[in-house]
């Protein structure tokens, strides 16, 4: 336990997950740049012409998330951000399936690809959030560090004599009813 935490930050991801998160960051930035700089190429191949502005906005989002992933001390919220972005992407792509879009097969491929990335993002996010990990044990025993001369139950209310200033008192009528 001690040696494991000597290198890693307590309660933070192991190196493998951290590497995956960084990889996702680089991927985010690359995809974001493509969306921002060549939106037409994307919309044309998907039969979603006219959506260039949206694609560019998504590009900005990807870049921001990517930078966040690479720069943050704790990438967890940023990976969750990617998961959210994936959901948006999937929803947007799905609208391309409506009507008689001749590029439906392309959209199918894109959907599958995004779904794959979503799975990876989810995996990474869950690993970072520590879901399913073993309960951690105390590194040292502080169970006798009470700071009190007697059992806490015997200390309860010992300071009720404290002179609580008037400006710190809650008016009687506003107190929670218990």
């Amino acid at each position, binding site marked *: 336990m*001690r040696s494991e*935490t*000597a290198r890693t*930050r*307590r*309660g*933070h991801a192991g190196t493998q997950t951290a590497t995956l998160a960084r990889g996702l960051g680089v991927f985010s930035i690359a995809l974001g740049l493509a969306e921002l700089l060549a939106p037409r190429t994307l919309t044309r191949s998907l039969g979603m012409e006219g959506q260039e502005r949206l694609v560019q906005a998504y590009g900005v989002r990807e870049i*921001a*998330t990517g930078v*966040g992933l690479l720069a*943050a*001390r*704790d990438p*967890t*919220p*940023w*990976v*969750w*951000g990617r*998961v*959210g*972005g994936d*959901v948006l992407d999937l929803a947007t792509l799905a609208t391309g399936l409506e009507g008689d879009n001749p590029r439906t097969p392309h959209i199918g491929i894109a959907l599958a690809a995004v779904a794959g990335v979503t799975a990876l993002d989810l995996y990474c996010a869950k690993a970072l*959030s*520590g*879901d399913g990990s073993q*309960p*951690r*044990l*105390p*590194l*040292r*025993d*502080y*169970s*006798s*560090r*009470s*700071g*009190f*001369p007697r059992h*806490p*139950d015997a*200390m*309860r*209310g*010992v*300071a*009720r004599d*404290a*002179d*609580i*200033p008037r*400006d*710190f008192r*809650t008016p009687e009528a*506003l*107190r*929670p009813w*218990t």
Partner: protein
Amino acid sequence: MKALVWHGKEDIRCEEVPDPRIEEPRDAIIKVTSCAICGSDLHLYNGFVPFMKSGDIMGHECMGEVVEVGPEAKGKLKVGERVVIPFTIICGECEQCRRGNFSVCETTNRNKDLAAKAFGRTTAGLFGYTHLTGGYPGGQAEYLRVPYADRTHIKVPDGLSDEQVLFLSDILPTGWQAAVQCDIQPTDTVAIWGCGPVGQMAIRSAVLLGARQVIAIDRIPERLDMAKAGGAVTINFEEESVVERIEELTKGKGPEKCIDAVGLEAHATATLDSMYDRVKQAMMLESDRAHVLREMMYLCRPAGTLSIPGVYGGLIDKIPFGAVMNKGLTIRTGQTHVNRWTDDLLRRIEQGQIDPTFVITHRVRLEDGPAMYETFRDKKDACVKVVMTP
């Protein structure tokens, strides 16, 4: 002299700097005998607090021996006296000081304009903190210049060790004020988020002030053990649902009083938020900062009180103010009015009601300070509180 100097995010070094001198007639110089690292220092270390400058000397929890006294502080302080220095610099004369609102002293902040721009009005000068609060050199050093020293001190009675009284500078009165702000009634459940040093002191204070039940929330097992030792029922937010456990412990009504002893670097809990919520939080491109505040606002019993010693710097997002308004919650917060509580707390230490040394886990030389910032932040080596001696 040697001092711990801030050079940027995660860059604190032990360096040789010029000795402080008396600059104003109310100044005094103390030779620091003990100092500590505070959770607030971590916000500076992590680069969350604006208006820090490279070269700033850290530290606002310290004590020592008076070695020089300015002409206008004479009579109030003598060379050789032992004093604890409160982190809030106070004039003792302005309207706020006279009311005991020391942390918003109207006199001592020498960057009032900057503070007024950020906060609307000025607040007190603080040691070893941002230039928003005066940018006064701090006490993680061999010597400290104490401005307004005739008022800004707590005298240490003979027979008490440094470690017994050091935390009068900040965390003990901070935990105490957090509990006092709750105006605790014998029927109250007080839920405390964060079992760092401030949370630990708040737990003890809530027990002493007579709370029926104290609930403590964190995810670091040894900190939770320490909380339990002080009389709290604990919730590990990484292993159990804070909402469910609090419902259980308060028969579905919520705690009357909630304390945020975490502040702006709160960690998102793994269980409260559905995945959807976490995704949404992240999509706002805001880190999980206001997490504890949101949880408290949601869980607190109607007509209850939120007490917030945890430090915030600027703006926070997605605050469920509807919950606050409709439930009629009271919010009390602030940097601690240290000297308002220290006479009483000193008496309680002398009487043995509380021994604040329980929280100390690491004792090092000042030179080892920079490494201890990381140890404390990352909760390595079961670190809860670091005390340094120059």
